[in-house]
């Protein structure tokens, strides 16, 4: 179907600013195929069903809107995460891989050798004639375009300038940590990662940092039978940054997929996750904690498909919003025919610290099997004034009492992180953010 003229122009302008990564080799073909998908669907406008709550205009614009660096002065001495109070995951023994403004930085990164893991850089191996990722790149993304189009994911596949191809054959010796730094106020980052866990393999993937003024990212994760993938992400605190990220995952029999994201600040963040439980007995947990103060728009759009029997899925998303911040949750559980004994759970909640902030939720269930257990809930509420007074009456200052209640509200999301040290890192990061934003009143 031909696109309407304005959509076609918008797409041409956006694509025109970015060159395909490869002109020869396996990647060139994969990127051309992705571009064809994108040309057929076009970039979204607010009239599209799944963009009603989030205006995609600044993601569609040909150039990334400028975004001030959080703490430009500290950049040179720069810790791994510019401007953060302590480097994210700083205390975690990990393999560090650094991207600056969306480009791999070999000097800042560790050597990419890790027992049980093969890591290649997309920009380096894309031009080869063969690679294991040739059959994977764009495959889950293409499948994930139905029934809901995800044009920025196709854009990431078509125009990724860099990314990693990670194949896990055993137990990864350490977590692999991707740190996305910024140096430029206007840089655009377009990234695509492919991750494959062979049967029984295990990997913890960490991501942190603001990445760029505008980030467009797709990550495809194949979790083989009996394999386990743990993902913990902290999106950077830069206020004006924008991001459209996508995780596409498919799980084999008995596979485990756990993903947690902490988002603090950011003008616009849209995190999409498309997860298919394809083998019996697989388990997928998706969790997100988002805290926003002021000009903050955060959107979690999640689609979990139960395609095999006996699988379990959880979606736990919570947002704390103040001073006019906006939170969006669009989450779906689809249970396909034959996916009996499905156990699906979805909760999305917001804590609105003032009346100027808002939470928009669209929870959906679509079930085509008769022996399933699916529950979902969505709530919006204010700080419990009685609990606040109770804490104050015991001598806890109001701001600290509020922070304690906010952390308690978010606790259920942090509990989705299996690793205690990682959970503690996230908790202390949240405490730091809350102490900096304590001025906002509960009333």
């Amino acid at each position, binding site marked *: 179907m031909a696109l309407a003229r304005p959509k076609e122009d918008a797409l041409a302008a956006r694509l025109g600013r970015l060159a395909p990564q490869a002109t020869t080799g396996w990647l060139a073909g994969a990127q051309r195929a992705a571009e064809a998908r994108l040309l057929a669907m076009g970039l979204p406008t607010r009239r599209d069903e799944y963009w009603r709550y989030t205006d995609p205009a600044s993601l569609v614009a040909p150039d990334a809107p400028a975004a001030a660096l959080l703490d430009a002065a500290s950049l040179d001495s720069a810790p791994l995460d510019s401007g953060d109070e302590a480097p994210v995951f700083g205390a975690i023994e990990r393999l560090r891989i650094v991207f600056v403004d969306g480009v791999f930085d070999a000097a800042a990164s560790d050597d990419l050798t890790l027992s049980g893991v093969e890591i290649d850089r997309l920009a380096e191996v894309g031009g080869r004639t063969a690679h294991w990722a040739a059959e994977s790149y764009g495959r889950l993304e293409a499948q994930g375009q139905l029934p809901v189009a995800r044009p920025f994911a196709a854009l990431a596949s078509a125009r990724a300038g860099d990314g990693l191809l990670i194949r896990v054959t055993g137990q990864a010796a350490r977590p692999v940590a991707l740190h996305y730094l910024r140096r430029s106020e206007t840089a655009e980052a377009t990234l695509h990662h492919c991750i494959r866990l062979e049967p029984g393999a295990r990997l913890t993937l960490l991501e942190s940092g603001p990445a760029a003024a505008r980030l467009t990212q797709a990550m495809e994760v194949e979790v083989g039978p009996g394999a386990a993938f743990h993902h913990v992400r902290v999106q950077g605190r830069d206020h004006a940054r924008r991001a459209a990220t996508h995780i596409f995952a498919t799980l084999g029999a008995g596979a485990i997929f756990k993903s947690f994201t902490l988002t603090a600040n950011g003008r616009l963040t849209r995190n999409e996750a498309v997860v298919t439980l394809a083998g019996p007995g697989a388990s997928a947990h998706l969790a997100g904690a988002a805290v926003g103060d002021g000009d903050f728009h955060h959107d979690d759009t999640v689609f979990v498909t139960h395609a095999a029997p006996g699988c379990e899925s959880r979606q736990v998303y919570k947002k704390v919003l103040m001073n006019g911040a906006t939170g969006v949750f669009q989450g779906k559980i689809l249970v396909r025919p034959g996916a009996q004994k499905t156990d699906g759970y979805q909760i999305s909640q917001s804590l609105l610290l003032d009346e100027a902030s808002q939470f928009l939720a669209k929870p959906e269930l679509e079930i085509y099997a008769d022996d399933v257990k699916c529950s979902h809930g969505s709530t919006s509420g204010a700080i419990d004034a009685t609990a606040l007074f109770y804490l104050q009456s015991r001598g806890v200052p109001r701001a600290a009492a509020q922070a304690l209640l906010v952390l308690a509200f978010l606790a*259920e999301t942090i509990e989705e992180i299996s690793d205690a040290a990682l959970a503690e890192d996230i908790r202390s990061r949240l405490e730091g953010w809350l102490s900096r934003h304590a001025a906002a009143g509960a009333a």
Partner: protein
Amino acid sequence: MLEIENLHVKLEDEDKVILHGVDLAVGAGEVHAIMGPNGSGKSTLGYVLAGREGYAVTAGSARLDGADLLAMAPEMRATAGLFLAFQYPVEIPGVGNMTFLRTAVNAQRKARGEAELSAAEFLKAVREKAKALKIDAEMLKRPVNVGFSGGEKKRNEILQMAMLEPRMCILDETDSGLDVDAMKLVAEGVNALRDAGRSFLVITHYQRLLDHIRPDVVHIMAAGQIVRSGGPELALEVEANGYAGILAEVR
């Protein structure tokens, strides 16, 4: 210790006056009881002294050791030595009881310029005090008051009081919802804290709590005022004849 003069209080959002000039003075080391029928303003008095929102003080004063309580934020009143044991202790999902206690103890110590308790010091103190109140380790680990029985909630209030060591304790219907054994346990917890430097204001409907916590002075409150004050015998009079007689006499 606590001096309340001519205290007038109305609801902030409604034209409803609840306290019509309360006068009350509790000396150091004294135990005062306030009794009265439902709706007489007893609980409101406790809340207003502790600083709960939703009330407007239209006249009068309340002082703790000469300091103007009403001008302080609730946490400052606590730091100054005031403690309110809630009639309905609040459940706080997601906040562990231990975390809650330690945060409160250390917030007060910090505000008073004292060193915070280390984890070990705190643990030792809380275990000792919890044991006396028959509060087990499991209860300390659970979220604050979540899933606690009525008796457990009240014992948890007394544990907080024991840990915070306030000088002016207000007990708001601490006996409500308790069976005889639980009431004894709570009363023992309170009595253990009695000393020359600590005062109590015990709000209750019934005389029976006062069998266990012996008051020095008993006040009868009705329609937002203290209408009669006397010794422990006043509580027995209420128990025998109800409030009707006293109220008729006052009118």
